[in-house]
Each structure stands twice: as structure tokens, then as C-alpha cells.
């Protein structure tokens, strides 16, 4: 069978060219055959998938027009799915069968999506390489010696290798965009509040946001249509009508003002990534966009501010994993303190522990003002930078990551080097803006991603720019040779 995009499969399902069961079996077969090279799934759920596919086929036969009807997808293992292990990449939740379903999953199920399984991820979404997963690292389909990025590395690798046409991701500091860039796919982190966080296991609540990862901007738009929307169960979700994100895909780029922050093209940027990004920008200019140099003067503060705010929130969010009600519990605890300390020492990996300790420290009496409060002020400065910039330009563009995928183990010993992998993406989370990464070229065999940042709730515009770029280029359609 010839591979297709999510949008392509949707058309073929509706044309009754193929059934959802056939499509589901086809992708389950690919996972079965190929995932041993990648380790992109933590759980594959063929029985549930085939039952959902059969149900979708019945609905298709009745002429049901649900937008994702019969389409196979994968859920990042951070989303609670009723009756299915929801591990969050951690030993802590290896035994956790979710007793309820996340809003995102519920909405996608209602739209007719067929879940094939749960994808691998950095433990509790803390990592930029997928090496912190309790279930082992995911490998980059373009080069198995290299990382797929993280934390949504399983979703990115699975989509890049076409083990599934689309998957969900979550992005706290770049966890959708950086792996999308490393694996040569398209991913969008929507505006904070666009997509419900209910049932999405929290890492840093004020930054976490779910979004789609797929081969193309069009596929992401289809996915986002199903994922986005107000949820009364999430107080931070925004009560605002959801537009049809596919509607603006055809908008041309004439007169579009694209801002290029000089801070994103400075020191530390790999020359190959720079060249690929500049070539991609030239394509956009040829389509009529205007390139304007801008400045985001406080963007250099984003990594340090992020590594105060995110650990602070995580130290509190992860307090519930105490061995009392669910999750890992140590054997034969001697007393309460022993239960807590051993359950947590055994259940959490090193990176999670590091962040819990940093977060506990920055919130401690006497340090709160110097760290947490200061970081929140920096956050406001960063948001102000963007607000000023969007007075001048419609979209901001630059490289998603300063480099191409690095080798497994290359940065494991140096957390700060690892953290710098997200230097261009983190500011977007701190400001709560939407950000997209799309394949923009290659360095050698390795993909390069370009990031597009939009104003609040301007996802449709970002998807439109990416779609126009993808009409002109075929980077998004290229596949790693081993998986063709």
C-alpha cells in the first residue's frame, strides 16, 4: 500500500477506497515490523484500535462526517486514556491504568480517530532527547545513532517513520517543536489555553500545552480542529470559539511581514542550520513575504527563567506521586517517611529528581523572591518583547533548534548543554504564544526545522504560512530511507 498523509487518508476513507480496518491494520503492521528500530511506542493497543476502526467503518458507512473518522493516530503517553496504561515515560506510573480519559483524547475519539497506542517520551516530559524515558531512548529514524529530540520524541519518530500518520505531543519548553525539527515533521504548540490540559499529566502547569504532530501543516490543522476548544474542566482553557484551522491554509503570503529576531541568528547557531533556515526564508520571500529584522532583547533570559519556573511548578505537581494511592510503591516500607523517600527515589529518574530539587530550592523560604518572583518578572519582559514585535510584524521566524539531532549520550552528562537545545523555543512558552516547526531543509541527511511564532490565537496564520511553504517545497514529504 502506498503511504499517504492524514488528509489524503481522510479523502480515501470517505471515497470508500479503503476501510478504517485496512488502514489500521496497515499501520499496526508497520509498527510491528519497524518500531523495534525506533522504540517510539510504550504501548501499542491493537485490540482497542481494531474495535475503534470497526466502529469508524460503521459510522463511515452511515455517512458520518466526523473530521478524523477512521484515521489512525497515536497519543503521547502523557494523556490519560481509560483502561490503558498511562506511564508518562516513568517507572513511577508503569503500573498506572488511567481510570479516566483526557479531554484531548476524548475529543479526538469523538472525532472518530483510531488510537494505535501510546508513544514514548522523556520521563514526565522532562528532557530534550527522549533519553530520560524509563522505557529506553527513542532513535531518530533519519539516523539511529541520533536522538529524535524530546520530550515528544516517540510521537515525532513514529510520524517521521510513518508508523502512524499523526500523533499528539505536548510542549512545555519546545517538546513538540524541537522533536518535530529533529525528525523532519510538522508540529504546532498552540496558544496557552487553546487546548485543554485536563487529563494531560502536568509537568509545568503554566507552560504545558498540547498540540498535533504530523507530516504536513494541513494534517496538523485537521488534528488541531479536533483537539482545540474550551473545556470547563480546565480553568486555564480559553472560552473562545474555535475556527476551522484548515480554512486559512490557502491564504497567500503577499505582504506578510515576517520578523527575524537577530538574537535567533547569532552565536551558537550551527552554520548548516543557518544556511537551511535562510534558504527557507528566501522561499517565503519569493512567495511575497517581507522579511524584517527585529529584536527580542530579553530572549537570552528565557532559558534561565524557564529553569526556575518549570522546576518550581514540577516540584509541586509531582508531589502526588508518593506511593500512597497509585503508582510505584516501594516494598515493605518501614514507616511513612520510608514509604515516601524510597517510593520516590525508586520511581523517579535522575532528570526528574534534578528538577524537583531545583524547584524545591527556588520556592524555599528566603529564596522565593530571588528566584521564582524574579523569573516571573523576566517572563513578563519576554512577553513584552513579543508584544512590541507583533506591532511590527505578523509572524516571527527562525531556526527551531540551534543544531541538528545530536548523538545519543552526547549531552547526557551536561544538563546545561541539553537545556540550550531549546534556546529558541522556550521564550514562546514563557509568553504563551503559538509556535510551529516545519521541515525547512537538511544538513547532510539530517532534517532542519524552521520555527514560526505567531501572536496569541494566530495558529491559523502559522498553519497557512507553513502550508504555503509546503506547496513550494517537498522537505515535509521526504522520508527516512529505512522506512520507505
Amino acid at each position, binding site marked *: 500500500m502506498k503511504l499517504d498523509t492524514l488528509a489524503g487518508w481522510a479523502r480515501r476513507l470517505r471515497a470508500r477506497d479503503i476501510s478504517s480496518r485496512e488502514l489500521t491494520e496497515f499501520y499496526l503492521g508497520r509498527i510491528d515490523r519497524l518500531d523495534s528500530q525506533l522504540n517510539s511506542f510504550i504501548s501499542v493497543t491493537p485490540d482497542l484500535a481494531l474495535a475503534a476502526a470497526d466502529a469508524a467503518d460503521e459510522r463511515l458507512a452511515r455517512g458520518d462526517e466526523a473530521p478524523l473518522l477512521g484515521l489512525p493516530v497515536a497519543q503521547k503517553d502523557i494523556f490519560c486514556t481509560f483502561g490503558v496504561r498511562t506511564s508518562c515515560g516513568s517507572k513511577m506510573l508503569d503500573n498506572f491504568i*488511567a481510570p479516566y480519559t483526557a479531554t484531548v483524547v476524548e475529543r479526538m475519539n469523538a472525532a472518530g480517530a483510531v488510537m494505535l497506542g501510546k508513544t514514548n517520551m522523556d520521563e514526565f516530559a522532562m528532557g530534550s532527547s527522549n533519553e530520560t524515558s524509563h522505557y529506553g531512548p527513542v532513535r531518530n529514524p533519519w539516523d539511529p545513532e541520533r536522538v529524535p529530540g524530546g520530550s515528544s520524541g516517540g510521537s515525532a519518530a513514529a510520524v517521521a517513520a510513518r508508523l502512524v500518520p499523526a500523533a499528539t505531543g505536548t510542549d512545555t519548553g519546545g517538546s513538540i517543536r524541537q522533536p518535530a525539527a529533529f525528525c523532519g515533521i510538522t508540529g504546532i504548540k498552540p496558544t496557552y489555553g487553546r487546548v485543554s490540559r485536563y487529563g494531560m499529566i502536568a509537568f509545568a502547569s503554566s507552560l504545558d500545552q498540547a498540540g498535533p504532530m504530523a507530516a504536513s501543516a494541513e494534517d496538523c490543522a485537521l488534528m488541531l480542529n479536533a483537539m482545540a476548544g474550551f473545556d470547563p474542566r480546565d*480553568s486555564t482553557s480559553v472560552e473562545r470559539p474555535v475556527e476551522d484551522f484548515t480554512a486559512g491554509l490557502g491564504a497567500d503570503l503577499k505582504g506578510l511581514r515576517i520578523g527575524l529576531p537577530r538574537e535567533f541568528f547569532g552565536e551558537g547557531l550551527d552554520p548548516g542550520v543557518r544556511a537551511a533556515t535562510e534558504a527557507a526564508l528566501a522561499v517565503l520571500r519569493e512567495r511575497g513575504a517581507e522579511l524584517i529584522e527585529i529584536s527580542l532583547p530579553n530572549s537570552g533570559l528565557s532559558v534561565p527563567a524557564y529553569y526556575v519556573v518549570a522546576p518550581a511548578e514540577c516540584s509541586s505537581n509531582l508531589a502526588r506521586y508518593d506511593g500512597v494511592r*497509585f503508582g510505584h510503591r516501594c516494598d515493605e516500607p518501614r514507616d511513612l517517611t520510608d514509604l515516601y523517600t524510597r517510593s520516590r527515589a525508586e520511581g523517579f529518574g535522575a532528570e526528574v529528581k534534578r528538577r524537583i530539587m531545583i524547584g524545591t530550592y527556588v520556592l524555599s523560604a528566603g529564596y522565593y523572591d530571588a528566584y521564582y518572583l524574579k523569573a516571573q518578572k523576566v517572563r513578563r519582559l519576554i512577553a513584552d518583547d513579543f508584544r512590541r514585535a507583533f506591532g511590527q510584524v505578523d509572524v516571527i521566524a527562525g531556526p527551531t533548534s540551534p543544531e541538528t539531532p545530536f548523538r545519543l549520550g552526547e549531552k547526557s552528562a551536561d544538563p546545561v548543554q541539553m537545556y540550550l537545545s531549546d534556546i529558541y523555543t522556550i521564550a514562546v512558552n514563557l509568553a504563551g504564544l503559538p509556535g510551529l516547526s516545519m521541515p525547512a531543509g537538511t544538513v547532510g541527511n539530517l532534517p532542519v526545522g524552521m520555527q514560526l511564532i505567531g501572536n496569541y490565537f494566530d495558529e491559523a496564520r502559522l498553519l497557512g504560512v507553513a502550508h504555503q511553504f509546503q506547496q513550494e517545497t517537498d522537505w515535509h514529504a521526504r522520508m527516512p530511507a529505512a522506512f520507505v
Partner: protein
Amino acid sequence: MEWETVIGLEIHTQLNTVSKIFSGAATAYGAEPNRQACAVDLGLPGVLPVLNAAVVEKAVMLGLAIDARIAPRSVFARKNYFYPDLPKGYQISQYELPIVEQGHLDIDLEDGSRKRIGVTRAHLEEDAGKSLHEGFTAMTGIDLNRAGTPLVEIVSEPDMRSAKEAVAYMKKLHALVRYLGISDGNMQEGSFRCDANVSVRPRGRTEFGTRAEIKNLNSFRFVERAINFEVERQIDLIESGGTVVQETRLYDPDRDETRSMRSKEEANDYRYFPDPDLLPVVIHAEDIEAARRRLPELPDAKRERFISAYGLSAYDAGSLTASRELADYFEAVAAGCGAPKLAANWVMGDFSAALNRSEAGLAQSPVSAAGLAQLLSRIQDETISGKIAKEVFDAMWAGEGGADAIIEARGLKQITDTGAIDAIIDEVIAANPSQLEQYRSGKDKLFGFFVGQVMKKTRGQANPAQVNERLRARLQGD
């Protein structure tokens, strides 16, 4: 040395909402363990809190009732600590920006004066679950039904100077939350409980002594006894050369003493920070006005009205307005019988006594306000005397029926027929010639003897005023 006691109270009041503060689970008391704990209350991975708007309304009503400032913007914060009955590892509370600030409550002192007690703040928070130790060996049971129950914590200034003042403040606040209808105030079920901060200092000194915090006092009596014990303990300690250390103490009612629970050094660093899962609570002027319109008449205003409208004494008005139910009951009785003072005497007297004896709440009283009003009407229209009315009341309490039915059935109707009374008087006089002689020769005290004899013969049913009048005339020999 003469010592002065300084007390501040932190009172936790459960708000009587149908569902919890951040989830849709029910708040009803007494369910099977963990049957009223939903995914949010259990702190499952991925769940999020959503604020129950009714909780905010109730807090605003409280703030208005204590003349406090209602914060236009208040913020929920996380108070982080590990405990098995705290499912998320943090309690959602308010810290830097509480919903209510700077109010006050006036208490009545024994000498009849009033004293103003400052309320520093009142903030919203969720209750924790309960750890159960009975029935488990080498383990602890956790019941999370209570987890997420809405609480308002009301923090006073250190303005109280004796255990009695502390109890007066606590009672006043207890009455207030029940007047407002924002809490059932049930102390046995923990709906209204108190932490007391207690210190002593030499009289005349302005700076405070080191305080101890006594946790979880759930009755007025325990508050009084715990504070008195603690004051004695601190004075004894200082006078014997020791120093008070800042610590948390527990009151043991069985031994009537407080015991150290943890010292300041062992205190948790709660690492408060604004809860990123919840938006700030924004309250507009219109919301405050809407809440103001919903306020019932408050105890102090009601007390003033009872004095001016019913002519009651300040003491009686104070007693009758101590609880909203009692005040409502009184007003219904007064309206029903048209005699407010008589109603006040009965409600505070026989009625309250019977209620206390039965240990029932007012709501379970076997004598309704309308029933009591009927009884009092019969005193008013002289169908029965006040004395007979007590007998009728006891019968009503025992469930024998309404006042009129009992009077009829027992034949208790007052004798007001002058001829009948005169006949009985004549009989009595005729039967006691020597007493008559003594009376006529100046032994006035014997008048009471004759009254007694007449009443005895009529089984108390003769109208006492008439008996007095007729008897006096007859005895004088007219």
C-alpha cells in the same frame, strides 16, 4: 507578677456548598469512606481544579457581615507538604492575597460592655482528608471524602485577653456563619473548629510574649479549658525560670492538658506559590452589591430591633438573638400570641429548659412556634393561668397534642365565674373558723393560707386575681 493573656484565634469554617470547592463531588457528611472522592479529590495524574462559584459568594457574605474589605482580586496558592491524607502533596489555599481582609466583630463582655475584636483576614481553602488509625494494625486508613471540602479560615487579631473573651468571640462568629447560612457550624462533625494562639506577658508590657498554637479545638468548652491550661502552663514555666518556646501543641480533653506536637524548628517550609491551575478570583463591585442584598438581618441589628420593637431588655434581646433559629422561633411565637414579653419569658424559660433537657436541636422541637403561641394566647385570654400553662406545656412537649386540646381533655379551663368562686371561698372560710379569727385579729399572713386552700379546692383552675379580690372582701367580712 501580674500576667496578661494574649489570644488570637484561627477558625476554620466549612462552607455548606453541595459540591466541593474544586470538584463536583458531594460534600455530605457521613458517607462510606472514599465514596465521595472523585478523580480530582484523589489527586489523580492530570486532573485540574475548577473553582466552585458558590464558595466565593459565601466568603463575600462573610466579609460584608464583619465589615471587611473584599479583595477585588485574590489568588489561590499551593501550600506544599507531604501527608497521606493530602492527596496532591499540596493544599490549595490563599496566601498573599486572601479574599477578605480587615474586618471586625464586637463581643459582649460579662460586665455588659462591648469589645471590638479585629479580623485580620479570611481566606478560602480546601480541607484535607482524614487518617484513620482505629481498626488498622501497623497501617493507617485514608478517607478522602472530606478532601476538597470548602473551608474559610478566619484569622483574628491577637485582641482577646482571656479564655472567656476567646469563647465569646468564637460563639459570636459561630452564630454569624449560621445567620448567614454559609455553614452548618456543626462542631462535632468538624464544620467549625479553632486553632488558638496563646501567649502571656507581664501586664503593662506592649510587646507580645512567645506564643504557642493549640491545634484543632472543636468545642467551646475545649477552647476555654485548653487556653486556661496553656496560660497556667506558660506562667508556671516563666515563673520557675524557664522560657516559652514557639511550638504547636495539641489539647488532650481526657487529661485536660496541652502537649507539644512540633517546635518551630520542625515546622514545614510550605513553599507557597500561586497555583498555576487556577485563575485569580476577580470580584466586581456589582458582585459585592448582589451579595449585600442577599445578607439576612445580622445578630447585632436583630438585637437592637428586639429591644426597640418588642421592649425587651438588652440581656433578653441578646439571648434570643444568639442563634438565628431561636430568634426566628421567638418572633413567630410573639407574632402568634401578640405578647412579646410573655413570649420572650417562655422561649428563654420553659421552652429553652425543655430543649436543653432533651438535647434536641430547635428544629426537632416537639412544640412548634405556632403551638407555643396558642398556649400563650390562652394565658392572655385568661383561659388558663401561667401555672396551669406550665402543665399544659409539659403535656404538649410529651406529644399529647395542642394547647386547646390538652386544656379541654384535662379540664384545665380556668374558673372565672364569680358565683362559683364565691361559693368555694365560703366553703373554705366555713371550714377554717380559727384561722379566720386569727386573720381578723391582725394575722395578715394567713391570707396566703386561704388562697392556697381555694386554689387547692379548684385544683389551681380558679383565676388567681379574682380569687385574691373576692377572698379579701369576704375575709374582711363584707
